[in-house]
């Protein structure tokens, strides 16, 4: 059969078939009972240098360790008596001034790992440092509470571990039209149009069909719902701006999706950090400011919480190439309208008490942040998602 015929036959055929029960069940499933709240997670991939983002400008140890790359006192935006924002984070400082930002310092975990891959795994799966999990913490949330792929969307073309569950995963897309068209290829469509799900089993073949059906219905739902809102705001013309714009369009078109994840690359600044990080922070914060504005204009900011993290911070002491090497604990940004603990949540890092690598020691376990978000923001059972009890924090 020719390809053209194949397509023709499928389009002819599609009207003739019943919508199978199995598909109906999936499509009518509602995740509305989970409420209106959204969670957006941004990873600054590569390991953002937190010390040069939020600068301890009265700390001599900081200046001594970074003769070439420290940010001078007169070249930053002071926020408190000891901490100031990198000047490229001015848009973030605006959010801070409006009470929309909480900064949690010294976030990490025991026995920190300094490999990008491993530490990203740890942050994405919420595991211990010596534990290997094959599901992500958002994936487990999707599996237990969302129950359908589009309850979690990654703004990319392939899915990260953070969004993976055991048998239900989130879905990745940076372009809903492309995603949709990929479920409309002749073979994919044709097979599904023939599928009556009468004999799908729990085994692998049944699992494949089930995943296809879910993929198609999620892609259709995301595409058809999100096209009802197109953002008119002027996002920075770069890929990260586009990721946030797409996220805003998803949220403002009132997609039922609950959790979003996007990764911004480029933060592995081993060399010539000064100018590179300057540009990165500017790209990040200017897009973030527009994103918040977009949500506010559409009255969705009040229902959205944004969490920004890196897989690790960087070493206190600069290296020989005008950069910094992989470190440990780092600061995390929480952005939202109704924060309980605005501004700085805890003390700045203690630079006199570093670990044996010369890295910042964590005082807040990142999973305490997850637990607080699950419990207080998404209002679900954090222990069953994180497999452990973590102390909850008081920022929301």
């Amino acid at each position, binding site marked *: *059969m*020719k*390809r053209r015929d*194949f397509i023709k036959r499928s389009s002819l055929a599609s009207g003739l078939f019943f919508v199978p029960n199995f598909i109906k069940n999936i499509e009518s499933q509602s995740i509305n009972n989970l409420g209106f709240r959204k969670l957006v997670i941004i990873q600054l*991939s*590569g*390991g953002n240098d937190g010390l040069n983002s939020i600068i301890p400008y009265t700390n001599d140890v900081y200046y001594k360790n970074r003769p070439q790359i420290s940010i001078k006192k007169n070249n930053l935006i002071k926020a408190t008596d000891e901490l100031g924002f990198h000047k490229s984070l001015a848009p973030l400082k605006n959010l801070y001034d409006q009470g929309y930002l909480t900064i949690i310092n010294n976030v990490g975990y025991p026995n920190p790992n300094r490999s*990008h*891959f491993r530490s*990203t*795994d740890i942050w994405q799966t919420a595991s211990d440092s*010596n534990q*290997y999990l*094959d599901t992500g913490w958002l994936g487990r949330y999707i599996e237990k509470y969302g129950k359908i*792929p589009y309850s979690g969307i990654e703004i990319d*073309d*392939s*899915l990260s571990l953070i*969004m*993976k569950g*055991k*048998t239900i*995963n*989130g*879905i*990745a897309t*940076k372009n809903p039209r*492309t995603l949709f068209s*990929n*479920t409309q*290829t002749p*073979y*994919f469509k*044709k*097979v599904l149009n*023939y*599928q009556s799900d*009468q*004999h799908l089993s729990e085994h*692998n*073949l049944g699992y*494949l*069909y089930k*995943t*296809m059906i*879910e*993929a198609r219905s999620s*892609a259709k739902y995301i595409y058809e719902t999100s096209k009802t809102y197109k953002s008119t705001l002027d996002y920075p013309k*770069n*890929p*990260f701006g586009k990721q946030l714009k797409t996220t805003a369009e998803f949220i403002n078109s009132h997609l039922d999706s609950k959790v979003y994840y996007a*990764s*911004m*690359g*480029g933060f*592995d600044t081993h060399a010539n950090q000064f100018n*590179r990080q300057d*540009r*990165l922070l500017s*790209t990040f914060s200017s897009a973030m400011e527009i994103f918040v504005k977009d949500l506010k204009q559409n009255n969705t900011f009040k229902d959205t919480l944004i969490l920004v993290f890196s897989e690790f911070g960087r070493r206190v002491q600069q290296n020989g190439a005008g950069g910094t090497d992989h470190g440990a604990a780092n600061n995390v940004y929480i952005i939202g309208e109704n924060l309980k603990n605005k501004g700085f949540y805890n003390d700045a890092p203690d630079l006199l008490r570093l670990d044996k690598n010369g890295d910042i020691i964590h005082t807040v376990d990142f999973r305490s942040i997850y637990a607080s978000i699950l419990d207080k923001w998404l209002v679900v059972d954090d222990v069953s998602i994180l497999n452990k009890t973590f102390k909850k924090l008081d920022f929301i």
Partner: protein
Amino acid sequence: MKQRHIQHLYWRAGFGIDVKKIDQLKSKSKNEIVKNLISDAKKINLLQLDLSEFNLIKNKSPKALRIEMGEEAYRKLRQKSQKKVRDLNHAWLERLTEPTSVLREKMTLFWSNVFVCRDNHIFHIQHFNNTLRKNALGNFRELVKTIAKEASMSKYLNNRQNRKKSPNENFARELMELFTLGIGNYTEQDIKEAARAFTGWSFKLNGDFVLREKQHDSGIKTFFDKSGYFDGDDIIDLILEKKQCARFICDKVYRYFVNPIIDESHLDEITTIFYKDYDINNLMVHIFSAKWFYNDKNIGVKIKSPVELLVGIRRVVPVTFMKKNQLNYLQKMMGQVLLYPENVSGWKGGKNWIDSNTLMFRMKLASLILNDAVINLEEKGAFEDSFNKYYNKERKRNKYIKTIKNWDVFTKNHLKLKPNELRDLLIISKLDKDTADLLNELRVNSNKDYCIQLMSIPEYQLC
């Protein structure tokens, strides 16, 4: 032997089988066919890139080279050598498409996901890969002991930082947790004692193992309730004394080669055999000869790994990739890049390969490489990338996968096949009833088109 059983054997012991080979084997008995497979696997064809331009790296220390060549030139040489790991990835993938020594190659791939390792030192990682290949069907005891002395492993699990004064437990822990026993079969104290036994195990520039006596703790260790002046080899022997070790490996073997769902009595059976002498070859012969291996419930029920899927297609239609980088793209989009495992626990496999995105991509794979389907998705950037590079992977790529398809070979091999014969050749899983109806209704114009169509149904994802 029945055709379906031959296909089953060759999908598990290799990457599928072509119609010519089936015709050769059909009249033979199971014993003969398994014997054939085993004797074909005796050949050890090492994977070796031409690395002569990087010999300096192998012979002189970075410090000496920096002085001799200058910082910049040294950095460039190093980076260039690190890129060779990608070439090794491509060479390995090409190797898997070759029809000889299939069982050895399949075992090598299997072991690479047991002894998971990653290294950007091309000499060391190539050596590591060949160690797996050499020992793939040998003795498991030898395999573990050799792996423990590999430079790449020493780096990957920090054993070279494991010194008498400050032991590093990483290798000792993963040796037991991931390579031999599984979690819960040892104590934290066992790890500490084992780590002491591996102190001072290091390597020379060229990758050769060396015991640094001064950093080795030669004192008495107490491990699994036994005490002695144990070194690393002794620890490995003590681990292998436990039947749990044989069971742990047989469990992996069973899930990989037989069925992702364990049949306890079959697992007991092969564990007993393996525990006797840890002979890998004997274990595999036993499995492939067992009646239960050919039970219907074991056939066509495994989700192919991305590499099995890709190689399997190429075994039916020979394909040459014009842009080797596009092989990386395909691997990345499906979540399995050889030599670049995500972490030491390896790829989980099975349902873990599948999510909405990977499934759509996998079902389009045959169209992408055989039918010039358009690429409309981008791979993720790398951690080390700059902002621009992180997002701009696609600029380097054409919008479709550039391949030369050798349809002549396919046509010659499959000329006389009727549609249902071609279907039975390509699809080994049970057909979903509705999809079977769909296939029956198709008007098949050419085996070439039908081949791509068959490779695009969900059943082709299974082996």
